[in-house]
């Protein structure tokens, strides 16, 4: 019957209860949406940066990181890449020949990073083939070797698919080499800086030009399970002590710390909003208690223990929070799911420049299922805390005085 009393007490002033329920719904909706946008942005950034650019693990000659030159090659690079591909935690391996050079069109020059790749392995590793938005991804070999450039670089050089550009770089002996390449395709990624800087050619073509058919300066590794990156990179480092093995968190520390911060603190984005709403809930229940002084006095006078009175007030508050919280969680789940498919285009709000910072202008908000349960726990916990003061006020009433309250 105490549950019945609590439930009916909530609806004694249905307008007031509905107002606070709506406040909780909006609080949860707003909080979850903010959290989903924040997490969506960072996860998209992870996908773009790690999955399309740096991969889970990279191996280099120790000097290559400071001086990305062709002669800092990985000894027996192709053999090492073959061995790594046999590791049970490794999904795909892409051996590359990478160095800096210059790309020139008829009237423009640009400093670039030239990446010689195996087209199939590279697509399996960074999905490069599917990032090509105009032209083809390494079609049938023609008279000139083929190059895939970023759209931004093509715009800067004022060239298009089918145009010829000249790449200039040092060979294995340090001599300058220039060669003409035909643009076979243009790729697009979120980061305009990456598009301007990186171009891809066949490693066979590049190796012939630098005079070393088996040169490998970089091995990109994709794992079956990204969460094993520390374990696998540690094992690879133990196996190849003379090679620098770096995982994505080493290569992209700001992204790593940003994701770590979100993983640990995302709940408090919602928690702070719910905390604010909890004060509204406290006010509602306090008003309800102050309106029932005589009634609470009678309950205690006839023998209802203070613990039960306290519990009744807490229960009433918790029911309100559970109704509002459940509605808010269901609505936010539906909204986030819908927007995750559709995307939130922030270009209209000045989001077009986001690419300069490596962020997309269309955001796909997302939240893990476990997060909704965390929010549910926070709602109930804050509701119980909010109920404590009104409940304490209720049990502090002196029955003999309260029953005479007008």
């Amino acid at each position, binding site marked *: *019957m105490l549950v019945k009393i609590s439930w009916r007490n909530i609806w004694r002033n249905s307008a007031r209860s509905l107002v606070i329920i709506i406040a909780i719904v909006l609080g949860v909706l707003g909080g979850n949406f903010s959290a989903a946008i924040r997490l969506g942005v960072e996860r998209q950034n992870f996908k773009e940066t790690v999955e399309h650019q740096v991969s889970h693990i990279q191996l280099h000659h120790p000097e290559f990181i400071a001086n990305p030159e062709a002669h800092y090659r990985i000894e027996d690079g192709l053999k090492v890449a073959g061995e790594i591909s046999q590791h049970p935690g490794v999904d795909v391996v892409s051996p590359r020949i990478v160095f800096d050079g210059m790309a020139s069109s008829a009237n423009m020059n640009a400093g670039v990073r030239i990446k010689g790749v195996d087209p199939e392995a590279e697509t399996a590793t960074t999905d490069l083939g599917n990032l090509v938005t105009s032209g083809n991804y390494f079609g049938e070999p023609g008279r000139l070797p083929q190059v895939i450039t970023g759209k931004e670089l093509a715009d800067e050089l004022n060239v298009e698919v089918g145009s010829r550009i000249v790449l200039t770089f040092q060979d294995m002996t340090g001599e300058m080499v220039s060669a003409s390449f035909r643009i076979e395709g243009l790729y697009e990624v979120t980061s305009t800086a990456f598009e301007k800087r990186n171009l891809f050619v066949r490693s066979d073509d590049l190796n012939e030009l630098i005079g070393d058919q088996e040169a490998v300066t970089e091995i990109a590794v994709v794992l079956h399970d990204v969460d094993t990156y520390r374990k696998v990179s540690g094992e690879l480092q133990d196996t190849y002590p003379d090679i620098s093995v770096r995982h994505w968190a080493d290569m992209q520390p700001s992204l790593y710390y940003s994701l770590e911060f979100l993983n640990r603190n995302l709940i408090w984005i919602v928690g702070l909003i719910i905390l604010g709403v909890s004060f509204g809930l406290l006010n509602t229940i306090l008003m309800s208690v102050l309106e029932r002084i005589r009634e609470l006095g009678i309950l205690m*006078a006839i023998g209802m223990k203070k613990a039960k009175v306290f519990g009744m007030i807490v229960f009433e508050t918790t029911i309100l929070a559970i109704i509002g919280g459940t509605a808010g969680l269901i609505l936010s789940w539906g909204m986030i799911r819908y927007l995750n498919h559709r995307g939130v285009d922030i270009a209209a709000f000045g989001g077009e420049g986001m690419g300069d910072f490596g962020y997309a202008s269309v955001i796909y908000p997302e939240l893990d299922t476990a997060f909704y349960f965390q929010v549910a726990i926070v709602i109930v916990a804050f509701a119980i805390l909010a109920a404590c003061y009104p409940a304490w006020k209720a049990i502090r009433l002196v029955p003999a005085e309260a029953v005479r309250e007008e």
Partner: protein
Amino acid sequence: MKTVIETKGLSKTYTNTAVPVEALKDISLEFKEGEFTAIVGPSGSGKTTFLNVIGGLDKPTKGKVIIDNVDIASMKESQLFDFRLKHIGFVFQAYNLIPVLTATENVSFIMLLQKRPKEEMNKRAKEMLEQVGLSDKLDVRPNKLSGGQQQRVAVARALASRPDFVLADEPTANLDTESAFNLLDIMARLNKEENITLVFSTHDQRVIDRARRVITLVDGAVDKDETFDRD
């Protein structure tokens, strides 16, 4: 006849006022089983304080309240909650009932707190509502009942758990004459049928005329203790 309530040298002084107020002065009384007693006196004479003290709602400054061989004045607050629940029925001036519960649920409420079986609760609640003439209002909430009907439900609630005695603080204060007589008839009948000790505080002559014992308080002290044969 068995003594249900005994007070010895009961005094109560309120010190939380600008000038200490002596609400009760050295009251020693006995209430026997089945008595129908009215505590009368002018406003401020100490009627409500006396009821609060013998009902365990307030503590005396001095003296003893012995109920069932136990001095409740020395009990802790938590023990008093249990004691009130098991031994005492209360009827207050007005707005006695829990507004969100039906008449039957209100009458059952004390038995629920006493953890009585559900069947017994429902049976007894219906029986008591029939006895107070409200068998057609079992599922009606207090806001749909008249003041007199609400007080009859309150009496049914106070008596339903068969307490050792019932304390009623000016139960007819807000009732019209017809409702007041109706309530008093019911209380007198139940007092006889259930042999429950009833103690009223009142300054309502209609109640005083029905009481078999009338104790008059003046300035917190017993002025008169009279017994009448009303049969």
